[in-house]
């Protein structure tokens, strides 16, 4: 077993264990921390796969951005010390069963498929990515790039609108909901 392999399995173990802890840990804040580690482990995996750029993005966006937002929101919603409500054991059992059967299905599928691994070298330098990002011809990604930027813009605006409207239209909405329920009952 080479060091390369050992590193992979270590990273895999890290990712999976912290991931598992993150979805099972009753305390919300702790699970956010476990998520952080899991994401870092995934960034490590990208390094391992020689995709340094992705790894960097992973760290800066996920670890530096998303997880921080999540932690902020945990504080904002005063959930930091709280334990999440445990759900019905039957549903847990079903969820585990579903997850396992899904996993088995996927494993079988993957096992049955012959992946033809290419022997070419994987050269991922940043200028190449940058050029492809703005290129319009064959192998260019300028259109998806634009789409994603518009999506981001829309998301930002959406965030602001959602955050703004709630405080203004709160009573109305409640009324609306009530009237809707009444109609439904009728």
């Amino acid at each position: 077993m080479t060091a390369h392999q050992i590193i992979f399995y270590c990273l895999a173990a890290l990712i999976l264990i912290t991931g598992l802890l993150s979805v099972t840990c009753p305390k919300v804040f702790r699970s956010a921390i476990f998520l952080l580690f899991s994401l870092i482990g995934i960034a490590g995996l990208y390094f391992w796969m020689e995709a340094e750029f992705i790894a960097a993005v992973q760290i800066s966006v996920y670890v530096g951005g998303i997880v921080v937002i999540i932690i902020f929101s945990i504080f904002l919603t005063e959930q930091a010390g709280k334990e999440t409500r445990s759900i019905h054991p039957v549903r847990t059992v079903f969820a585990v069963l579903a997850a396992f059967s899904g996993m088995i299905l996927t494993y079988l599928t993957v096992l049955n498929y012959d992946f033809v691994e290419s022997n070419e070298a994987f050269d991922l330098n940043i200028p190449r990515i940058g050029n492809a990002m703005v290129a319009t011809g064959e192998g260019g990604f300028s259109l998806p790039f634009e789409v994603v930027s518009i999506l981001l813009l829309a998301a930002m605006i959406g965030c602001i609108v959602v955050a703004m409207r709630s405080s203004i239209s709160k009573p109305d909405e409640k009324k609306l909901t009530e009237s809707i329920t009444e109609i439904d009952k009728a």
Partner: protein
Amino acid sequence: MIPVSHILFLSATLFFIGMYGFVTRKNLITMLMALELMLNSVNINFVAFNKYLYPGKLDGIFFTIFIIAVAAAEAAVAISIIINLYRMHKTIDVGAATELKH
């Protein structure tokens, strides 16, 4: 040499861990975190495919980048909704968020 299938096993396991979390958690924020795990497992797949199967191309890498971008946006929107919800209902329990039904 690690075969590509091992990486796929890893990502699949991670995906189903995320799924398990998404289904079992009651707290919206933890559900969001489970979702992030699932997205990441997909990202791992894309990078792995790109590296091992089509090293000459960049499609997988770009998918990953875009997914990360979208995930960031999605996380932002989700968090804003969650906070909003919290303001209205003083809880972020998923059972409270049934407005979609109507």
